[in-house]
């Protein structure tokens, strides 16, 4: 590199000052454009909340808190109480969680800790494919395959064994709360499994090594060093699954029986917030009816937003605490 004399350097200085700086317009415009697009998420949340609120405000004013705590749903008499739907949503989601949580977490543990290495990737791919099945197709399968089978074998057996409890008594129709819960369980299994798997994978290897060094068996290492370490994150995965279960629509609409009632027996048909929207929205003739249904949408939105907020907070605090990767 040739040396630059002091005079030359001095001569360069004014030249550089005379050069006009490159235009910043493109940069600014692009940044603002992308910013506007990113803020779409804020706009969307506000938009959904506002649209549901303004669309149901008349019904909310008319019925007030009665909308949430009474159970008469009579469009002809214009009497709307959403309690049976709230009950149906909660019970079907609870059944789904009871089935999906143990299976999902056990599968996640199998995939990250216990399974032979060659089997892991194919299993993960299969679970991703299960997640890709549209809800309506699972519902179709539920109507024509699952329900006839349930009515034939497991339901009568359950009734023989547990028929003395109120939960499994009464006649078996086929479409019922229990069938709804099972189909929702199938719908949320992939997300619970894959999020739990991510959580378990983010547990530092040091945990496992320490357990094995102390002579733990494979299961003991998994239980003591991995599962209990990841408890909070796994709880987040469960809550995330709950959020999906509450909003699940098509499959559950097709198998739950669509009858607004609050019955102890899980063999009786039920109804959920999402399925009453799916079934009755286009049939709503009067303004108040549409308003009441939009109110149902608002209740559903409020519940799922709260549940999802909780899930994301749990997942974030867990990953923040255990993230050993460099933050980019």
């Amino acid at each position, binding site marked *: 590199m040739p040396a630059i004399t002091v005079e030359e350097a001095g001569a360069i200085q004014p030249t550089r000052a005379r050069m006009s700086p490159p235009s910043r317009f493109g940069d600014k415009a692009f940044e603002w454009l992308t910013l506007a697009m990113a803020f779409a998420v804020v706009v969307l949340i506000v938009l959904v909340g506002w649209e549901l609120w303004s669309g149901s405000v008349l019904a909310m004013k008319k019925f007030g808190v009665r909308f949430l705590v009474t159970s008469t749903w009579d469009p002809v008499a214009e009497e709307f109480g959403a309690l049976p739907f709230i009950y149906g949503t909660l019970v079907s989601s609870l059944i789904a969680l009871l089935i999906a949580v143990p299976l999902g977490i056990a599968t996640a543990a199998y995939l990250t800790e*216990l399974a032979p290495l060659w089997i892991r990737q194919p299993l993960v791919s299969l679970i991703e*494919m299960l997640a890709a099945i549209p809800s309506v197709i699972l519902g179709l399968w539920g109507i024509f395959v699952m329900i006839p089978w349930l009515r034939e074998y497991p339901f009568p057996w359950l009734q023989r064994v547990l028929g003395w409890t109120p939960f499994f008594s009464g006649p078996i129709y086929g479409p019922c709360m229990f069938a709804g819960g099972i189909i929702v369980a199938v719908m949320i299994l992939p997300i619970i499994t894959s999020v739990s798997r991510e959580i378990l994978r983010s547990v530092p290897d040091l945990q496992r090594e320490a357990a094995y060094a102390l002579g733990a068996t494979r299961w003991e290492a998994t239980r003591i060093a991995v599962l209990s370490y990841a408890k909070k994150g796994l709880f987040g995965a469960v809550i995330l699954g709950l959020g*999906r279960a509450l909003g699940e629509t098509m499959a559950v609409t097709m198998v739950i029986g669509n009858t607004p009632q609050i019955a102890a027996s899980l063999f009786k048909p039920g109804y959920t917030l999402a399925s009453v929207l799916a079934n009755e929205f286009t049939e709503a003739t009067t303004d108040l009816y549409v308003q009441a249904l939009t109110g149902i949408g608002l209740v559903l939105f409020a519940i799922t937003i709260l549940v999802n907020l909780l899930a994301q907070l749990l997942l974030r605090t867990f990953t923040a605490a255990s993230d050993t990767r460099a933050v980019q």
Partner: protein
Amino acid sequence: MRFEGKHNHTWRKIKSALACTIAFVSAILVILPLGLVFFYLLVNGIGSVNWDFFTKLPAPVGAVGGGMANAIVGTLVLLAIAGVIGIPVGVLGGVYLAEYGSARINSVLRFLADVLNGVPSITWGVVVYGLIVLRFKSFSALAGGLALGLIMIPLILRTTEEVILLVPNGYREASLALGVSRWQTIVHIVMKTASRGIITGILLALARVGGETAPLLFTAFGNRFWNHSLTEPIAALPLQVFTYAISPYDDWHRQAWAGALVLVTGVFCVNVLVRILTRGRGASPL
């Protein structure tokens, strides 16, 4: 603590093997529905997937035969509208999260996007009904496409952000050092490097909303005939499957299985395509 020597050790080994077996059985139970759904789709659907299915309109009630040509085209039209709305917003929003913005704002936006992803899809139907259908007094293809497009936004935003963050910083620095402006660096270097990942995210989002029924029930509404204008109701494959599945007619049930088989085949083809696109690369956006 007790110490029971050899006997205790054997018991612990057995317990470990038992736990492994239970976990294995759980994994089988999780993927069992996939196999069962596939099996019954093939058994019940394959017989009704024929030339008529792809070329004819639905037959009137009572008449045997007919197809779902309008529903297949309808789903493609709806996806096109959804893409026009969802892809630019999602991709550019993802670029902002990855390239600009302070850590505080970005973590809030990311958080909100994740929360939006958990909003039930039927909610979007209700919202678009209020926004478009009530205002223009008609169910329409545009309303259906908008509902699907809004669902796509947070999905694409998050995957785009994740793949753009994987682009090494050296690429950006090299480009900026050559005097290329920042936005050109992002468009020509960063987004180009991440293009396969971005496309993967877009395809997955399309596959996901392509199977959605709930947001279309009172936006696109469905149509027994060809759609001639985007401001009219339009048929969609998942909607048609739903209508036929809950109908009392055997022939419609057969058609529903056929429609479901075609829909699932489409969705899985996209997923396989994604797998090919991301093969040999450690970083899949999922």
